[in-house]
Every structure is written in structure tokens, then in C-alpha cells.
């Protein structure tokens, strides 16, 4: 090959590998979803996954949301005052939190916390042959390991987003009433009247999609981990990176689908 073409070849190869990986992950996702009915046999694994994905993520999600909501309200106030539009703080904060920042912050926190820990756990099972051991014990690893975690992602993350939205709004409310001189009742009424069902639907839809991405990517990376401690480290790194990027990309796509046209 001529040297001029080398960079092109590199891009081409990268693109092909990317497409192959997307295909792989799509098949993996379908396989996981097909296993969901089989979960009736593993209630304990389901409960454990819900704890791990949902319940234990609440504190960090809550804190992130409160701080983000507070900062957002301050920024909108500062920006709005230049146009003498300070009074839009409740409305813009509400939209900003519910449509965008709530789901995105929760999605990224879940990618950091849940994707990392699931990928590490499953990759360790892979390198210590526990996944092979499951097969030899007549238990399907996709049903036993992947399906409970993906179900937990699909169910818990929208709930986390809901909690994040409420706490984010509370963060905005707290600084607006405490520092920016808004009245409590009028602030709440202004936010409430401005939000509509579509905003909430978008927020929760994002939660479902992000939860699916965070858990599917973690399981896929864990199942395909290389050998030894290095394999585990690689799996965690690539899972968190891919989950974060896919969540942000899906966020744009969903926002465009709801409000783009």
C-alpha cells in the first residue's frame, strides 16, 4: 500500500471494527432481553442486582442532582440578569434539569459507579473461570449473570432519574429562595406550570435507555475480558468509556427525537 493511504486504511479499519462491535453488542442485547422471562428462576440474583444498581446508587445520584440544580439556578440567574430576565429562573431550571441535566448526570454517575463495578465483577468471574463453571453446572450465564443486571438497569435507572429530577429541582429551589430572593410558593408554581408531560416522559425514557446502555455494556465487557488482572482492568476502562460516550450520544438522539422537529 502507498504511504499516502495508510491513515485512510487506519480510519477504515477502525470504522469496520466499530461496526463489528456495534453488531456484537446488538446481538448481546437481544440475547439478554430474550433471557428476561427465565429470571423467574433466579429471584435472589434479581434482588441482588436491584440493590447493586438501584438502591446503592441513590446517595451519589441525590447529591449530584442537588448540587447541579443549585449551580444551574445560579447560572441562569446570572445570565438572565444581563437581559433583565431574572424571573425565568424557575422555568429554565425546571426544563434544564428534567429534560437534560437530571438524566445526563444520573446516566454518567451510573456509568461511573454501576458500569465500573459490574464490569469488574463479571470480568473477574470470567478470568477465574466462574463463568465456565456456571456452564458446567447446567446454568446459562446470560440468564444468571446478564439478565438480572440488565433488568435492574432498565427498571432502576429511570427511578433514579426521577429522584435526580426532584432533587435537582430542589437544589435550584433552595438557592433561588435562599439567596436569589424568590418566593417559595411562586417559584414552585412557576416550575410546575411550565413543565409538561412530554418533559417528564423524555426524562424517564432517557433513564430507561441509559440504564440499558450502562448495564449491557458492563456485562458485554465483562464477558469478553482478557486474561488476568490486566484483562479486568481493560474491561472496566473500556466499559466505562463506551457507556459514557453511548449515553451522551443517545441523549442527543432522544432529545432530537422529542424536540428536534
Amino acid at each position, binding site marked *: 500500500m502507498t504511504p499516502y493511504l495508510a491513515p485512510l486504511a487506519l480510519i477504515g479499519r477502525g470504522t469496520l471494527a466499530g461496526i463489528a462491535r456495534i453488531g456484537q453488542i446488538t446481538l448481546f442485547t437481544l440475547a439478554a432481553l430474550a433471557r428476561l422471562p427465565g429470571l423467574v428462576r433466579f429471584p435472589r440474583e434479581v434482588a441482588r442486582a436491584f440493590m447493586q444498581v438501584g438502591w446503592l446508587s441513590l446517595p451519589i445520584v441525590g447529591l449530584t442532582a442537588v448540587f447541579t440544580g443549585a449551580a444551574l439556578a445560579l447560572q441562569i440567574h446570572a445570565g438572565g440578569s444581563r437581559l433583565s430576565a431574572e424571573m425565568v429562573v424557575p422555568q429554565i431550571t425546571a426544563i434544564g434539569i428534567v429534560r437534560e441535566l437530571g438524566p445526563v448526570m444520573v446516566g454518567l454517575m451510573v456509568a461511573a459507579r454501576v458500569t465500573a463495578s459490574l464490569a469488574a465483577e463479571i470480568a473477574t468471574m470470567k478470568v477465574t473461570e466462574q463463568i465456565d463453571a456456571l*456452564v458446567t*453446572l*447446567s446454568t446459562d450465564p446470560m440468564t444468571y449473570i446478564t439478565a438480572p443486571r440488565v433488568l435492574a438497569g432498565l427498571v432502576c435507572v429511570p427511578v433514579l432519574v426521577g429522584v435526580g429530577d426532584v432533587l435537582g429541582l430542589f437544589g435550584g429551589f433552595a438557592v433561588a429562595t435562599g439567596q436569589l430572593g424568590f418566593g417559595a410558593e411562586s417559584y414552585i408554581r412557576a416550575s410546575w406550570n411550565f413543565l409538561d408531560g412530554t418533559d417528564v416522559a423524555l426524562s424517564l425514557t432517557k433513564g430507561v435507555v441509559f440504564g440499558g446502555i450502562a448495564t449491557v455494556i458492563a456485562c458485554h465487557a465483562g464477558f469478553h475480558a482478557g486474561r488476568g488482572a490486566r484483562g479486568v482492568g481493560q474491561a472496566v476502562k473500556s466499559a466505562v468509556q463506551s457507556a459514557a460516550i453511548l449515553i451522551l450520544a443517545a441523549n442527543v438522539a432522544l432529545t432530537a427525537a422529542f424536540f428536534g422537529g
Partner: protein
Amino acid sequence: MIRLEHITKRFDGRAVLDDLSLDLTKGRSLAVLGRSGTGKSVLSRIALGLMVPDAGRVLVIDQPMSAKVRRDLMAKTGVLFQGAALFDGLTVAENVAFRLRNGPQRVSRLAARSQALAALERVGLEARVADLYPADLSGGMQKRVGLARAIVGAPEFLVFDEPNSGLDPVTAGEIDRLVRTLVTDLKATALTITHDMASVATIADEVLLLDRGRVRWHGPVAEMEGAEDALLGQFRARR
């Protein structure tokens, strides 16, 4: 029962198994010997359908390995992995009873536990360890829990990857006799990987010496003594 035909397996271009053929006869116990890194564990994984060879095929009772054939095989197979591969989130008893509770049979909790305790006793572990987690056990104890998990449910096909490693000589001798008893009692077909020449005579009917991906020597245990193979001689000398 299981037949490997012209199996080749490569990692990064290097052939770990090279055109290897092998027949595991029903009811016979085979010991696989070989230096570290010659592909003994890889051989066992291929025989179980956990790893796909690059060339050649695996037949289970004359049927080529497939997802369904593997599922049927696993239903009557017990495996001890080299690193024990215990589930670290489950207790010892839950590990041992795993197949009974989660496999197709779905034995009741109580019955599964009593079978698990019986299996633990057979490998020389006290009931005391049943409610500990694998991380609380020594390496040799973990190995024995793995063995107990493999033998629960009376499997017909047994694969043991170094059942003796990390055990004191007394326990090792007990495990050897246990393997022998299991094979005799269950009329099981067994594939045992070992470095321990002392156990070969107890455990096995046949011996296979693997070297650089090929079968170097294969024959009945009784003929091993007289065989004129330099590597086999070295193994014998270490007894």
C-alpha cells in the same frame, strides 16, 4: 464416550495442541500428564466444549459438539477447575449445592443442603466450613470444595484439573482414593490432569503424556513402568 479428532488449537499463532486425537472410553479413568504449559487444561476445556478448537472436531457419543450436545453433556458432567472457580458471593454449601438448586432438577433447599454436606464430608471437609465463604478458606480447602461441587449429583463424566495440587500428602492420598471410588461406584468416565505420579497408579486405568501439543505416550497404567520414554522416565523418577 468423548472423542477428539485431529484437534489443533493456536494462541497468537502458536499451536498449543497440534493435531491431537484421543478417545475417552466410557467407564475408564484417564490421567493426563505433561509439563506445565503443554496444554493440558486447554485439552480439558476443548473436551468439555468450553473452548472451540481451530481445527478438528469433538464427538460426544458420536455426535459433533454443538450447543445442545454440550448442554446434554453438562447435565451429567462434574468439573473441577484448576483454580477451583468457586462463586465468591455464595457460601461453601451454596457452591456445592449449586447444580441441585439451579440446574434443571431444582432440588429442595433442605435436600440440596444435606447432599452438599455429604459431598463435603467425602472430600474430608467438616460441616463447620459449610457456611463460610470461599475467600475464608485456604487454597487446598477451596480445591476440595471445588471437588465436592463436581461430584454432587453423581455425574457420569468427571474432569478434574489437578485435584491434588496444594494438598498435604495425607489428604492427597485420600482424594486419590476418592476419585478412584467415584469412578468405580458411578461407573464414570474420568479425565484427571495431574503432575503427581504417585496418584496416577491409584486414580487411572490409562495414562496419556502430553508434550508440545502432541500425544507423546498413551497406554495402560500397568505398561507405564516398562515404557522406554525419556520424558515419562523423568516423571516416574520424581515419584
